[in-house]
């Protein structure tokens, strides 16, 4: 089958599933809905795999235009760009989606919103596919907003809970802040390049780099990239727009796995990678990306050390890992970033689903202090969780190792101004990752059960465990794609790297195969750090030194518990300020000034004038005559004086 047809099948199948399930929310039974959506996603997955296989053979990128969306001439169209990058993403998306669909059969069983949930899932998959397949910014933005929407709906899925809808709103609004930047970036693009079509825009990246932006010393290209990166920060939850992600854990766990770990949050990463021809032209943007990524990677990891909600811990870990991906982008190691995205998708989905399994077993309890000793009661979950964790911390041989190690190395090779800082942050992040992963493992699976639920925890049924196992296998396998991704040209021409900061090329010079990499890994400083941390973690958490140490670091702990005060800052300052401004506009501005003073004031004045003038009509004849005389005298005077 040819590529356009396959691409349309991918989108069409998922779309049909979403629409059918969505329209049939009231009609369809759970089984029918499940069947429809899974069939759709499954078909899409198959098509994606075929596409991937085709591209693995080295097909040329192909544009698939469906129809013009906006006025002609701006590249506002519904059209797909099928190349190796989008195909990789399609596979990841459809695969994770498929697994989450399956997993959700068990996880969501009996929920009154079951069908709705599946419709949302499919809709999300559709949006994500549009996002990754788009061949122009407009469609990218449509998908971008689409995933934001579904994320909003899914976070607030249990709408009768008090907090879920608020978390959804928060997620949406913070995302919108990012979109604000994205939209401006698109505006700048349109102003600078006159088109929103990738190909057209990319072709002009040189020209844009020469063009001056309204800001002194900044090229148009940099401005565009900065604006677009703000969008990416929102979606990929980079500091300081990360605050929505931990809250989003209010949603059902499969959602956390799929949206808030594997796919949606990586949209920002994907976007930057997709737009590499632009970002390559702006060192300013790259430096910013480096430092934002670095700060996110380390600081969010640290919070993971103190969080007590199992999903929160994983969420902070996700933030931290997103930071790594971002750093990789900054170092122009787009392939490494995508590769980390790829591996992370699997191991983080695995971790989340495993956590979901734990949560199910705990009857929707999520506090890790209530758990303990679950390894014995839930062996499959524990084993898969362990595999995920190992991948996460980057133990040589596991998926995370390959991807993260590549990133760290790329950072080391980068010549950018802030690369050394980022490198340091990345290394520190490794240690932190190890610590919180170990802490989580110890709290959940080691030791004695700390609650009745933990004592009676049971392994969930197969729809839950099978995806876990599958994901575990994939996690183990994913790492071995490193060669293809980074050096084998799997991503082909989709990524453009300026020769001046082609870190991956420099790394390729001393790449000696996977085995070599593993062996090398043991010599890498990161791994030493990792080992040390694991050891430290063992003593801290397994041996219980953490509790003794706590008073000593209480200051740090409280900072971490408060999440560096971001939430406080936003809620106390930004939100409150917005409300104050809103109140000022509404009460003072509109009610008092415009309505009170101008509008009703005029009315009042008129009425008063009327009441006053009315007194002139005194009823006295002499007054009346005087008035006539006054008029006469005035007229005479006017005419006489005028001459």
């Amino acid at each position, binding site marked *: 089958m040819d590529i356009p047809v396959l691409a349309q099948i991918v989108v069409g199948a998922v779309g049909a599933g979403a629409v059918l399930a969505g329209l049939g929310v009231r009609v369809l039974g759970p089984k029918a809905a499940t069947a429809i959506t899974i069939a759709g996603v499954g078909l899409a997955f198959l098509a994606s795999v075929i596409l991937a296989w085709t591209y693995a053979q080295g097909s040329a990128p192909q544009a698939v235009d469906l129809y013009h969306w906006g006025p002609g001439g701006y590249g506002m169209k519904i059209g797909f760009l099928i190349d190796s990058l989008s195909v990789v993403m399609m596979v990841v998306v459809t695969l994770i989606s498929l697994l989450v669909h399956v997993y959700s059969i068990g996880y969501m069983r009996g929920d009154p919103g079951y069908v709705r949930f599946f419709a949302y899932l499919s809709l999300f998959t559709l949006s994500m596919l549009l996002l990754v397949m788009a061949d122009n910014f407009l469609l990218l933005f449509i998908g971008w907003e689409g995933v934001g929407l579904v994320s909003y709906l899914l976070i607030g899925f249990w709408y009768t809970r008090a907090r879920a809808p608020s978390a959804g709103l928060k997620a949406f609004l913070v995302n919108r802040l990012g979109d604000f930047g994205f939209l401006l970036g698109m505006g700048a693009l349109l102003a600078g390049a006159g088109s929103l079509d990738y190909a057209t825009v990319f072709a002009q990246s040189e020209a844009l780099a020469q063009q001056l932006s309204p800001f002194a010393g900044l090229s148009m290209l940099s401005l565009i990239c900065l604006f677009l990166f703000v969008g990416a920060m929102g979606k990929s939850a980079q500091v300081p727009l990360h605050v929505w992600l931990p809250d989003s854990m209010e949603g059902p766990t499969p959602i956390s796995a799929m949206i808030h770990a594997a796919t949606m949050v990586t949209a920002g990463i994907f976007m930057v990678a997709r737009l590499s021809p632009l970002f390559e032209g702006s060192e300013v943007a790259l430096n910013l990306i480096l430092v934002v990524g670095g700060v996110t990677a380390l600081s969010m990891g640290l919070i993971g050390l103190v969080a007590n909600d199992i999903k929160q811990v994983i969420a902070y870990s996700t933030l931290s890992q997103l930071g790594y991906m971002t750093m990789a982008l900054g170092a122009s190691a787009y392939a490494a970033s995508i590769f980390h995205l790829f591996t992370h998708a699997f191991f983080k989905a695995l971790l989340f689903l495993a956590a979901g399994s734990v949560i199910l077993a705990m009857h929707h309890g999520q506090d890790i202090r209530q758990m303990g000793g679950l390894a014995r009661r839930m062996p499959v979950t524990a084993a898969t969780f362990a595999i995920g964790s190992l991948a996460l911390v980057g133990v040589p041989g596991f998926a995370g190792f390959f991807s993260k190690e590549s990133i760290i190395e790329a950072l080391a090779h980068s010549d950018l101004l802030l690369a050394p800082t980022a490198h340091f942050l990345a290394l520190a992040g490794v240690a932190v990752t190890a610590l919180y992963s170990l802490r989580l493992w110890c709290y959940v699976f080691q030791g004695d059960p700390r609650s009745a639920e933990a004592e009676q925890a049971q392994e969930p049924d197969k729809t839950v465990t099978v995806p876990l196992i599958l994901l575990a296998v994939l996690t183990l396998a994913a790492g071995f794609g490193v060669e293809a991704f980074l050096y084998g040209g799997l991503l082909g021409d989709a990524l453009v790297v300026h020769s001046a900061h082609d870190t991956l090329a420099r790394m390729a010079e001393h790449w000696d195969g996977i085995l070599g990499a593993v062996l090398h890994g043991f010599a890498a400083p990161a791994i030493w750090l990792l080992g040390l941390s694991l050891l430290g973690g063992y003593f801290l958490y397994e041996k219980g030194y953490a509790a003794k140490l706590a008073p000593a670091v209480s200051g740090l702990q409280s900072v971490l518990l408060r999440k560096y005060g971001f939430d406080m800052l936003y809620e106390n300052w930004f939100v409150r300020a917005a409300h104050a401004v809103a109140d000022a506009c509404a009460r003072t501005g509109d009610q008092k000034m415009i309505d009170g003073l101008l509008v009703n004031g005029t009315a009042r004045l*008129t*009425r008063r*004038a*009327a*009441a006053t*003038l*009315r007194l002139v*009509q005194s*009823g006295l*004849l002499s*007054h*009346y*005559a005087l*008035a*006539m005389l*006054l*008029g*006469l005298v*005035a*007229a*005479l005077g*006017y*005419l*006489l004086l005028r001459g």
Partner: protein
Amino acid sequence: MSVAQEMILMLPEIVLVVGACFILLCPRPLAWPLTMLTLAAAVGAMLATAPDAPILLMSGMFERSAEVDVLRILICVLTVLVLRYARGYPVSSDRLQSNEFYTLATFGCVGMFLISGAEHLVALYMGLEILALSLYPMIAMVRDDGRAGEAALKYFVLGALASGFLLYGMSLMYAATGTLHIGELAERLGQMETNRILLLGTVFMLAGLAFKLGATPFHMWLPDVYDGSSLPAATYLSAAPKIAGLLLLLRLFGDGLMALAADWTTLMMALAVLSLLLGNLVAIAQTRIRRMLAYSAIAHTGFVFLALCAGSPKGMGSAVFYTLVYALMAAGSFGMLLLLNARTTAEDIKDFKGLNHSHPWLAIMVLILMFSMAGVPLTAGFYAKLYVLQAVVEAGLWPLAVAAVLLTVVGAYYYLRIVWYMYFEEAERPAEPGEDLTHVFLVSANALVLVVIFAVPQPWLEMSQRAAGVFVGGQ
């Protein structure tokens, strides 16, 4: 021209005078039909004797023209209309439906007829005084009501004062130009340099006429007279005499004093703006319908003066059209008021409350009248304003136009108030309008004519332009 021919051309006036005498003497029940007959006969006489071209009669004192005849017919129609409305008025009714009342009303028409054709200052003055002399007793006629007497006294004293102004102005004009004939006056003024005597005369004449029309600051009598007099008298006063007053203005200023337009237009602007301002503002503060209508009349007068300030034939035409429409609106409004007062007293604006609920048809008619007064489209009032604005803007006086329309917005408020009382509020006490179907029909027709004029305004506009053309024909 032979005396017989002249008498034939004067037939409408003669018919009216003779009719009025018969009305005075006939048995009481015959007074009303005889009045109608007389007015109808006058109209018939007018139609039968209409000249092809404007023609001067009675040694050049009087002008007959088909164009102005149309207005005179309208005066008759309005008189018939208001007299018919007034028939339903019950309070002290014996006097108000007496022979004297109808006689005076008919004589009033004689006065208006004279005004409409007068080509000579004496004739003009006589017409004016016949009208005024008929109005004074009509207003005072509800003898036991102190308010009516008070109103009549005020009207009389101030009216006589205004007549004094007018006469004094005329005497100065006469002294300066040596003629009393309006056509000659225009001619001589055209050949003269302006001097102060002329200016003085102009001011005094303008003051006298401004009083008749009720322009600020010569308006003070108007609210009190509308308010204090009997409703039938106020109704009579509100409609046809406005047309006569305008004709007076046109004759004197549009024709006689046209050469001094540069001077009097400025004064008229002041009158116009002041009238608009005061009329519209003070109307807001009123609680009695009649007083409100009185101030509204002042505001409308302001618009008429605005039209005249343009000092152009178009301005004159627009003034005529405006006055026609206004007279119709005023007649309709008072007719409605009389209908509402047929059985109980309903003089407060509040008495309109809930009218839509009890009498939706009447409410719609009032709505049409009020929106027409406010100058909102789908009613003739809109064109009246549009026409005036056109004339004013054409004369380059657009700041004046802006001021006028802004004050119109203020004015819209009190017309709206009546509408909202009718439609939005609950009645405080049930309305008891008269059940006289003819009256209802006439009032409705009166209101609907405003809509008809809106839909087909061309004949009316042409008529107004032509009528105005007769006055400024010398130009």
